[in-house]
């Protein structure tokens, strides 16, 4: 093949498209910020930024796990249910203290992740089907454990939900730390490389002797655990456990954040920075529309437009 493409592009159109793929999501965030600075009253206040950041934290944490799953050419639909399961477990075991309860909630997420991973890796069920099963089962289990909304009155949880360090809420710090951790894992560890290789070409990864099944299980365990953490964060923020509604449609928000952030659904590439920006972008978009008194249905339409744009930008990535 003669079309050996070198790193430095000369074709302006191709180069522009590449830039759009790489930095489009960041540009989107910047544009929305500038728009709001200019046209939204009271946008430029610390309080507002705190609110935005606190709202985006749980979505972001879920999206991190989702990015890993999508990087292996899979998907994890059970994340919303894991959040519900996590909140149920949390309020059930809160009597043992917040730490123990949180630990048990995360364990619950890990168990769901193991089930997902085992179905995908060993039974060979397609990820969308396997995690759909756990999505239904997880929500059911959460409701069995805790049939209705329950207030969470625990000083530890209250501190987690509203406390801060130097003005930065704990929730945001935790989400940021997890994002850095996942980014580090993807970039610097053998596990991260193996995830990408498996996502890009599974037969090749298998023949190269990679522990494909183990990596897949670990990926879904990570996703489950992160979703459980997101459940804890959301519970702390709302100071209530509501397994009926917590995390509904969360899988879609997370997938949106990941896709908008430039991680292709075909696997083989994981962009954590982009995922963070993607989650922020969606959050800002919603806020902007709400602050300008547009009905919520507009938000959904705007989200759809963003997704289509992101997919359009990603479309030509595979071509030369």
């Amino acid at each position, binding site marked *: 093949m003669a079309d050996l493409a070198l790193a430095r592009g000369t074709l302006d159109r191709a180069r522009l498209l590449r830039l759009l793929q790489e930095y489009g999501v960041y540009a989107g965030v910047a544009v929305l910020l500038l728009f709001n600075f200019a046209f939204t009253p009271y946008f430029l206040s610390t309080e507002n930024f705190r609110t935005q950041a606190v709202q985006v934290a749980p979505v972001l944490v879920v999206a991190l796990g989702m990015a890993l799953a999508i990087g292996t050419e899979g998907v994890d639909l059970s994340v919303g249910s894991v959040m519900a399961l996590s909140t149920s477990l949390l309020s059930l075991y809160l009597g043992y203290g917040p730490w123990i309860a949180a630990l048990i909630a995360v364990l619950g997420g890990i168990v769901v992740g193991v089930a997902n991973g085992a179905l995908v890796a060993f039974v060979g069920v397609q990820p969308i089907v396997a995690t759909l099963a756990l999505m239904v089962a997880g929500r059911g289990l959460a409701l069995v454990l805790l049939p209705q909304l329950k207030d969470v009155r625990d000083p530890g949880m209250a501190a987690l939900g509203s406390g801060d360090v130097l003005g930065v809420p704990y929730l945001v710090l935790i989400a940021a730390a997890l994002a850095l951790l996942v980014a580090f894992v993807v970039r610097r560890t*053998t596990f991260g490389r193996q995830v990408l290789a498996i996502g890009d070409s599974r037969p090749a990864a298998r023949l190269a002797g990679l522990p494909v099944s183990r990596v897949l299980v670990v990926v879904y365990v990570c996703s489950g655990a992160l979703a459980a953490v997101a459940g804890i964060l959301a519970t702390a923020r709302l100071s209530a456990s509501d397994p009926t509604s917590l995390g509904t449609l969360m899988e879609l928000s997370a997938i949106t954040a990941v896709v908008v952030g430039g991680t292709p659904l075909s696997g083989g590439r994981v962009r954590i920075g982009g995922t963070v920006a993607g989650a922020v972008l969606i959050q800002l978009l919603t806020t902007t529309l709400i602050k300008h008194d547009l009905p919520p249905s507009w938000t959904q339409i705007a989200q759809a437009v963003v997704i289509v744009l992101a997919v359009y930008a990603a479309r030509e990535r595979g071509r030369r």
Partner: protein
Amino acid sequence: MLSVTKLSKTFPGVRALSDVDFTAHAGQVHALVGENGAGKSTLIKVLTGVYRPDAGEVSYDGAPVRFATPLQAQQAGISTIYQEVNLVPLMSVARNLFLGREPRGRLGLIDFGRLHREADEALRRLGIRVDVRRPLRELGVGAQQMVALARAVAVDARVVIMDEPTSSLEPREVATLFGVIRMLRERGVAVIYVSHRMDELYEICDAVTVLRDGRVVHTGPLAGLDRLRLVSMMLGREIGEVRTEGLTKFSGSHTATAEPVLRADNLTVRHRLNDVSLALRPGEVVGLGGLLGSGRSETAKAIAGALPTDAGRVSVAGTPVRTGSTAAAIRAGISLLPEDRKAEGIVPGLSVRENIALAALPALSRFGLVDDSRIDRVVETFMKRLRIKAAGPHQKVGELSGGNQQKVLLARWLALHPKVLLLDEPTRGIDVGAKAEVQALIDELADDGLAVLLISSDTEELIEGSDRVIVLKEGVVVRELTGDDVTEDGLMRALASAPAGGHDG
């Protein structure tokens, strides 16, 4: 019929075609040859509307044309058969054959009766007998290729472009293909034929155009053109040089007297392999001969743990290896270069660096953290040693030429310091120059004490490269050629005369 003048096409950083003139005449089979990277694929893609040229003109039937999409080119009567079959695997053979132009009955619905009848006739004319109602993917690759051919012929094409059509065909199918090509020629169709196989070119082609580095270096009738001269034009080397170096790069002899490092005993895989045993000594290249479907790849895969076995043992240096696990085989020092480089070998979206380091990652990491500087050293060493041509270690492997992809794969395995190297068609589909390099490398590795199992459909390569040749037929070892018996003649005789010992080929 179809011609281009002063055609140029540039990709970021590379001038793929410059000032190319090329004309395909009606009723003529025109060979298009050149090393990988010479610009053949690009030229074909321009002709079929996949790429648009930067400069120059394409004219069809005497009038200038600009095909914006492959569909337009197809509708104009230009059919292309690509190296990789691009049909719909889940649809039936008949539907694939008539995809997009199904015979309609009343109400505009597909007339399946007629569809199947016509499909069956079309294939029968090409000497293919398959149930046209079966999904295409149940057919072998060769048969799929023939369906693609039938499709191209059936659309009343005026120009048929074939990009290495024989790379997955058996000799009998190649004969059928040639029959079809002759028929096309008589019908006045212009055929453009891309291949790396000299024999085929001289058998079927009338004219030849040689591309090198994006330029036409020769064009004219093929008859009367000396083979060596053709090779030297493709390579851009002098004739004397080619002749003295021979057509392959093997030295062909290694001294191997030590104890076998690899022993495979009684490997059996239902319907594929029956009681296959072989032993490899360090420093020798053992060829695995046989026709398509004789169980060569399966043997290699079974040894490498990529194919679960029903019975049999594999041991490396006396230590038994768990079968059915690639990880166990790799730990024991067995590396397999798979036949299907694109699907099973490279990880196209990752960089050259990541691809080379992939298998050796655990060894190049500390506590699960990748040690980048060590990887860089290893990658640099191998890129230099194997002369991998890439823009840099961070270029995506999917963008490299076939030969360089193969070298990246070799580097991946060599980075593990294996004891046994199983090479399944290491030079298939790569250009002459890279081929010679890979062959020289195999030789060198054997000299370094590696045990090499070489599978190749290229008889010449197999004979010249191997110290011994084990011949398989229908999943059974039928013969072992050693010493002076390792000749093409000996191999042919073994293939022809040996009784089929298997019962379930």
